[in-house]
């Protein structure tokens, strides 16, 4: 199948990642030196000792927690785009996901972890329902994918805080239960690894499973090949007797559901829904898009990029514990700066050739 050339460049995400790490370090160095007046030389001279005090097991674990929602959105977006639909509404779907999870948890009882899980389940179903509408608009009514995706974001930013205010009398929810941590006895006592692996949010492990599953499904199953062909060479897929638009419906609905799950995970890892400002999602859906672009549409690469964003995000707290004077406001901008630096360093990613075009079967 000629449409599967995409496998060629999916093979070397490692090279890109090394570059990504270097870019992050460079950005960190520049920002640190210029803006925060961090005595870089001193920090460097402390060498490994400093590194060890920054990269604590708790830090790694928290970074993974931060990365999980971004990763989930990224996998969803990647599937949709692989099949030829640019789901730029990920941020909006995440906002809905976080809110649906909060509202569902609130209404089922908000008593404990069980309710949090029920909330997550309901949230995924509801966001998939929204994604069905979105998919119909994009595929049946050939809506412009970029504009409609932006519309989803705006609808999320407006209607979600509106509904939150109707329910709770405030754009923020009251305190809600999370899912807690999955602690394996004995094994969690292992130094470093114990905290990172065996004393971790179950949602992080769910995310890891989804990443691996998404990779296997995309590159090792028949349907995965259809998805790739729908984005690269829809005509060939059509000729082979497969309904291109059906494949696209499936991926768009899947992407909405995963972004919703990402939002729900974000909620489960914090104590309440925040609907003020850019909402608690606060750009993570956009980072999801960037993560899969860096990962070159490979689920493993996307997850690694998301982990890097999560790590940068969590640096704020680490710097504070080390008494490094840094404005948290500026440090919070680091992921965005990194995105631009890396996007510029790499330039164009290999976009599937038929992305953005509605497909019409010739009957």
């Amino acid at each position: 199948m000629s449409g599967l050339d995409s496998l060629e460049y999916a093979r070397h995400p490692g090279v890109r990642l090394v570059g990504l790490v270097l870019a992050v370090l460079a950005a960190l160095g520049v920002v640190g030196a210029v803006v925060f007046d961090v005595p870089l030389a001193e920090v460097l001279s402390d060498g490994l000792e400093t590194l060890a005090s920054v990269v604590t097991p708790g830090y790694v674990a928290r970074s993974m927690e931060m990365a999980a929602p971004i990763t989930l959105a990224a996998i969803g977006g990647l599937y949709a785009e692989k099949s030829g639909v640019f789901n730029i509404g990920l941020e909006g779907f995440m906002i809905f996901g976080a809110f649906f999870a909060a509202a569902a948890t609130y209404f089922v009882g908000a008593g404990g972890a069980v309710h949090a899980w029920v909330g997550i389940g309901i949230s995924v179903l509801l966001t998939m329902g929204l994604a069905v509408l979105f998919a119909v608009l994009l595929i049946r009514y050939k809506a412009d994918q970029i504009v409609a995706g932006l519309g989803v974001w705006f609808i999320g930013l407006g209607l979600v805080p509106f509904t939150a205010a109707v329910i709770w009398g405030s754009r923020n929810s009251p305190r809600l239960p999370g899912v807690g941590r999955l602690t394996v006895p004995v094994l969690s006592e292992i130094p470093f690894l114990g905290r990172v692996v065996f004393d971790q949010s179950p949602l992080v492990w769910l995310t890891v499973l989804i990443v691996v599953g998404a990779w296997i499904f995309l590159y090792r199953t028949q349907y995965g090949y259809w998805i790739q062909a729908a984005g690269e060479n829809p005509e060939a897929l059509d000729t082979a007797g497969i309904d291109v638009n059906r494949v696209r419906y499936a991926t768009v609905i899947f992407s909405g559901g995963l972004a919703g799950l990402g939002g729900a995970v974000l909620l489960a890892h914090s104590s309440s829904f925040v609907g003020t400002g850019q909402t608690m999602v606060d750009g993570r859906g956009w980072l999801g898009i960037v993560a899969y672009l860096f990962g070159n549409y490979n689920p493993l690469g996307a997850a690694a990029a998301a982990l890097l964003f999560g790590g940068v995000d969590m640096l704020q707290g680490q710097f504070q514990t080390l008494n490094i004077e840094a404005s948290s406001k500026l440090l919070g901008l680091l992921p965005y700066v990194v995105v631009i630096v890396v996007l510029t360093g790499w330039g164009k990613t290999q976009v599937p050739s038929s992305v953005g075009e509605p497909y019409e079967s010739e009957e």
Partner: protein
Amino acid sequence: MSSADQSGPRSMADRVAGRLLEATVLERLGIALASVTTAILIGLVLVAAAGYNPILFLNNLIVGALGSERILARTLRLSTFFILTGVAVAIAFRAGVFNIGVQGQFVVGGLFCTVSILWTAPFLPTGTVGGIGLMLIGTVAAAVGGGLYGALPGVLKAYADANEIITTIMLNFIAIGVVSWLLTNPLRAEGSTNVQTERLPDYVGLPPIVFGDSSFSIIGLLLTLALVAVVAIAMTRTGIGYDMVTSGYQAGAAVYSGVDAKRTIVATMTFSGAVAGLASAVYVIMFQGRFIEPASIHTYGYDAIAVSLLAANNPLGVVPAGLLFGGLNSSSSYIQTYSDVPVQLIDGIVGIVIVFVAAPELFRMAAKRAGLGGEDR
């Protein structure tokens, strides 16, 4: 054709521009009206579902936009900002470049405007003459600041092939964060508990003429309309404008006829960002009289996307679309004060408008089914 013109987002932009420009004026108007009406109807259903009175809400929507002289002045003031930011978006979209970064360019432009006025004020005479001089300086600085901040993603797109949709969104977050930091620390007004700069001198400002409202001047609106005319002429009657629009229509043909695609992208983004900066100059000089916490500024730059799309990216069409958005947002202030309905609903309605505008096919099919309109558009 260079490889840049074949990348996904670029050709997607071509298609958007193509589809939106192809449609006849009448059809565009129909789709715009249908989108807005449907979105407001959905909003009313949501209001009713949330347990409020939809008739009262509709009434508040109208009274809140046009109810009194003071309210009308507010509507026109907001419309001025939406028209200017809408034109900024339209310039880019027409040329096939997605400038989602108008909000960031607005923030940077406003900061440049405020700081340039505050810093040069001691060296100029006070009074009307000095005021006019300072306003000119501030306006130019705003255009330069917005233009440079817009040029950045333009350069990154043209020369490093970085997707401008993503970079402009990231630059919005960065602009708001950095300016907010500057206003909290080095530029904060002395002794102020709020995150804001010092006030501009009293003699800097546009006089209220028709309306007795110090935060709106008809001069600001007239200057805005003049700028719209200039942009409309520049886009259709000048060489660079012609290059920009042909790049948007037919990237291939434009390159073939000798247009430098990379330079056109940078010029477009600079032009677009400069207009966003001008919007901010009006915002600072006519309305705020200082610069405030950028995170608390209304998302004019994002709503401007809807304004521009509603106007089919036509600078002249932006005027009625901007008036509509001015009215909607004016109502939202009214509703916040005089009603229990959470005002975020208005933002939601704006989002629904965008989604409908994105899917003209929806209304074409609906119109066909209802027996309206011709056989082929």
